[in-house]
């Protein structure tokens, strides 16, 4: 069905903006990001109250894990962008089969992130560090845990995208759902991009 690419290109030619996904997706995504913003502000507020403790605890985090996870998520977002381009090309009639592979690549990055998280959590717990250790580690575990929860939901979304990427035709509503799923994955990436410097780097 070529109607989707026709509507988006026609909108682009008229200089109108194309809103990716359904409107409702953005109620959820912007709502979720607002709450994370409140989380980050609270973290910074309490950090300001106990600066020395937070900086000292921060030194025990391994920056290498954070950097690797950042790179994994950035790569996964790139895969999702390329995957969406492949989906559009396929719906426009090109015989490309790249989309499921690209979404699969993003899923592999997500799995890599999960493995790193388990290793990191495991090392902390083995060293006797728990959320009860001090306020920094309470935030560390809750913020990264909440992000990890979103990442797991996002991997479910990617499985859905892999299946959708195989289709040669889609209704406008299905396409909007696929786009919304891609946006959700970008949000998971974006939240980590903020979370990583807040927990690992802020001096």
């Amino acid at each position, binding site marked *: 069905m070529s109607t989707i690419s026709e509507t988006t290109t026609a909108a682009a030619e008229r200089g109108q903006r194309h809103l990716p996904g*359904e409107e*409702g997706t953005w*109620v*959820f995504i912007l*709502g979720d990001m607002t*709450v994370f913003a409140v989380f980050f502000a*609270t973290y910074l507020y309490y950090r300001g109250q106990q600066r020395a403790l937070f900086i000292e605890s921060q030194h025990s985090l391994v920056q290498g894990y954070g950097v690797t996870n950042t790179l994994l998520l950035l790569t996964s977002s790139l895969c999702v962008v390329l995957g969406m381009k492949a989906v559009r090309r396929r719906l426009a009639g090109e015989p490309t089969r790249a989309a499921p592979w690209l979404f699969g690549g993003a899923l592999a990055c997500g799995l890599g992130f999960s493995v790193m998280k388990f290793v990191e959590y495991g090392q902390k717990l083995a060293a006797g560090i728990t959320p009860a250790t001090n*306020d920094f580690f*309470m935030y560390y575990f*809750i913020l990264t845990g909440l992000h990890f929860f979103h990442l797991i939901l996002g991997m479910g979304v990617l499985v859905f995208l892999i299946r959708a990427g195989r289709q040669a035709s889609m209704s406008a509503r299905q396409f909007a759902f696929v786009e919304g799923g891609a946006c959700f994955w970008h949000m998971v990436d974006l939240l980590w991009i903020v979370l990583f410097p807040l927990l690992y780097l802020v001096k």
Partner: protein
Amino acid sequence: MNTRNQRLCVWSGLLMMVLFSIGFWGVARLIPPPSPGWSATDLAHYLTEHQTRIRIGLVISMLGVAPGFAFPVAILLQLRRIEGPSSPLAYTQLVTGMLTPVLFILPMFAMAAAAYRPETRSPEITQALDDLGWLMLVGFGGPAILQNIVIAMAVFGDRRADPVFPRWVGYFNVWAALLFVPGLLVICFLGGPFAWNGVFAFWVPLTVFGAWYVVMTVALLRAVDQEEREALPIGTDPAPAGAPRPA
């Protein structure tokens, strides 16, 4: 079909929120909540000093919560329009939604017991009762979370040409479900943002809870209007003869 009574059920949700706020917030002044970090003696002293207004406030809010039983019925009636005669999601919503007012009243009784005779008994007993009340009120998010998820499932599954609820109502419910989760951590914290007077356990869920009633009320009123229009025989003008047509 009785849309007048259905609209009464819809408005009962906001009525509950208003009456609850008057009693709990305005009269008893239990918002912001007394800190879990207070010593037992301080708490007993506080409850003794403000005993009268806390009692009167609790009476008002316990009665005020009663209209809240009608609200999930309004949601049930509209979800049944999506699901048809066999409506598993609509009834799951009803069962979970009915618990909300119960889970307001029960903790308020624990708080009432704490304020019952704090001046004569050992302060630790008063503190234990007060703990029970606040932990229950803030931490009992499970039924509300399931209710939101069930509503979202029904909204996303709506295959009617003219859906009962717009799809963003579904996304809003998923969002609300996520935000009630931090409240469950309340049993682990004596202070900070996840304690029962903290940002994430109390203020965020309270805001979302209020917003949820407003959003659902607007969405339900529109759905009842739509139901009324659909019930008219085809070709009938919904506006009475001679009346100006709504824009």
